[in-house]
């Protein structure tokens, strides 16, 4: 694809312009190839390499302010045989709940947009969901405090309406608060992923189902879900992993016990325990890779990319 001056030598072009020396040509071709590989090299060096090296650094020995090469499983022991494991497992639980809630609330929107809105207008409706995502994460998460607080918006409105007689305190500084925060932060992603996934479900399929008189829930379970599964899975993994890894959520919305992997890692860094932070990162990466591998085996995730190709 990357051709450099293909007209050289042919069509008598060299009569008019002086021929370009072969050495310069080779140099140019090498340069353009290097240019095209630049993003890949960049991502390899600054993204794949650091994440892969977390495994190596996690077995280093901890020193007072840094770490030194060596082999010890102390960091893993520190993670697996302490309250950290319980925190990690319970944050996995909360993340899974958020995935399910986001799917139930968000995926019908993706189906609705694909099915009922004219093709040209579909992208515009999707754009609406980009808007909340454009407000800074920290502001969106912090803004939930005045909304969910004891004297906050939700409680005030519900008290005024007479739905409740006492303010609800279970929705902030509790696991419930973390789940609400995760759903509020990541719901747009299940809409995007679902929207992309529904590309795999052509409109005529709904017409066929209607003609054959299939009931709605059967259309959903037997037709939409299997076809859109890769996209839904990718969106679900995104929410799950971010729920585990974004430290701000439990830090700001969770109570004393709410700790996820991201928070363990940043706390370890603050305590200058770098091998532990790296061990947490390595465990998170292993979780992510296992999930993606599982998803790939089950649904062939490359199918998500078909709309791009």
């Amino acid at each position: 694809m990357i051709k450099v001056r293909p007209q050289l030598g042919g069509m008598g072009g060299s009569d008019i312009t002086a021929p370009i020396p072969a050495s310069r040509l080779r140099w140019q071709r090498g340069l353009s190839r290097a240019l095209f590989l630049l993003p890949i090299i960049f991502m390899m060096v600054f993204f794949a390499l650091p994440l892969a090296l977390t495994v190596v650094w996690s077995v280093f020995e901890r020193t007072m302010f840094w770490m030194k090469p060596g082999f010890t499983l102390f960091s893993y022991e520190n993670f697996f045989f302490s309250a950290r494991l319980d925190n990690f497992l319970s944050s996995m639980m909360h993340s899974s709940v958020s995935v399910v809630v986001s799917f139930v609330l968000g995926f019908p929107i993706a189906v609705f947009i694909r099915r009922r809105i004219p093709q040209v207008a579909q992208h515009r409706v999707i754009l609406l969901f980009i808007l909340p995502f454009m407000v800074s994460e920290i502001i969106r998460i912090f803004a939930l405090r005045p909304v969910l607080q004891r004297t906050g918006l939700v409680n005030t409105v519900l008290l005024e309406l007479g739905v409740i007689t006492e303010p609800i305190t279970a929705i902030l500084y509790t696991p419930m608060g973390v789940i609400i925060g995760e759903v509020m932060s990541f719901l747009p992603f299940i809409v995007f992923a679902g929207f992309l996934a529904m590309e795999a479900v052509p409109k005529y399929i709904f017409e066929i189902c209607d003609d054959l008189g299939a009931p709605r829930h059967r259309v959903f379970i037997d037709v939409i879900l299997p076809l859109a599964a890769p996209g839904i899975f990718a969106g679900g993994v995104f929410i799950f992993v971010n729920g585990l890894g974004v430290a701000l959520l439990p830090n700001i919305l969770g109570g004393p016990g709410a700790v996820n992997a991201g928070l363990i890692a940043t706390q370890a860094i603050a305590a200058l325990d770098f091998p532990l932070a790296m061990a947490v990162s390595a465990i998170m990466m292993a979780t992510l890779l296992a999930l993606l591998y599982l998803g790939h085996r089950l649904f062939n995730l490359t199918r998500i990319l078909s709309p791009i190709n």
Partner: protein
Amino acid sequence: MGDDYTRLWTYRLKWLYTLLVVFTLMLPVFYVIYISFNQNGFGARDYVFTFEWYSGIFTDLLLMNALGNTMLLAAITTVLAVPLGLIAAKFYKATGTDRAKLLTVSLLLSPLFVPADILGSALLVFFKNLNIACATAGEWLGVSWFETWFELGYFSALVGLIIYTIPYIFVVILITMGRYKEQQSEAARSCGATAWQAFYQIEFPQIRAGVFSACAFTVILSFNEYTRTSLLKGGYDTITSVLISQMLNEGMSEQSYAMSSLISFIAIAVIGSIIIYTLVHTDRLEREARAKAQPVMSS
């Protein structure tokens, strides 16, 4: 589509639900903006409209300094990351083998799946190690000009921001490129255009909208980013780090409400105007295309 007419109310209810979800997602931000104009602050019985809390923002030197740093980072990230994403998208389209395609797409999209704190910690330790390696190598070689290359600072923060934003850029540009027909470049090349001319004069005008919206996203995303920047930035302040430290130290003060709503307001205004512009623009393009497609009546 038949039952849209027979079941108009379910259709309307679904629309209502969609808009309600968007509204709910935005509600906390709107509420913060609402509080920021109240002279009595959060939770007060009486609402007195005021700009008082905003006036303090622009005279805060620490904040203005942080704003400068943040804007600089956002600008450089955009200048570097958008061309990188564009080149990657070109490479993805051009490369023939499935394995190269898979490698490109998985490398460029996987940062989406790596949470901020995990990537930030990994890069932090990576840069610290590089720094030590450089110092050791410098000592060994007896030269020192490269010793400070990998110190935590603008460079490391930029790397973190580029890795954060590049998946979005890649996807946005790739989707706009999907509408471009590669044969046009080939035609241009066979007419004697150089590769650069074929790209800049033929292809770029057609993907310009995607590139520009990728730029806007990058500016906003890197302006808003907290976790990666704060882990990698070294000594200086950015807007979000000032905001977070203010919120964590003093609780939500009136000024932090004002700052939050100002930042959100800017982001909403920028993205909102881009969305509106794209809508109007595509409408006009469609109308023009339809007009051109209509047969010319001879009198």
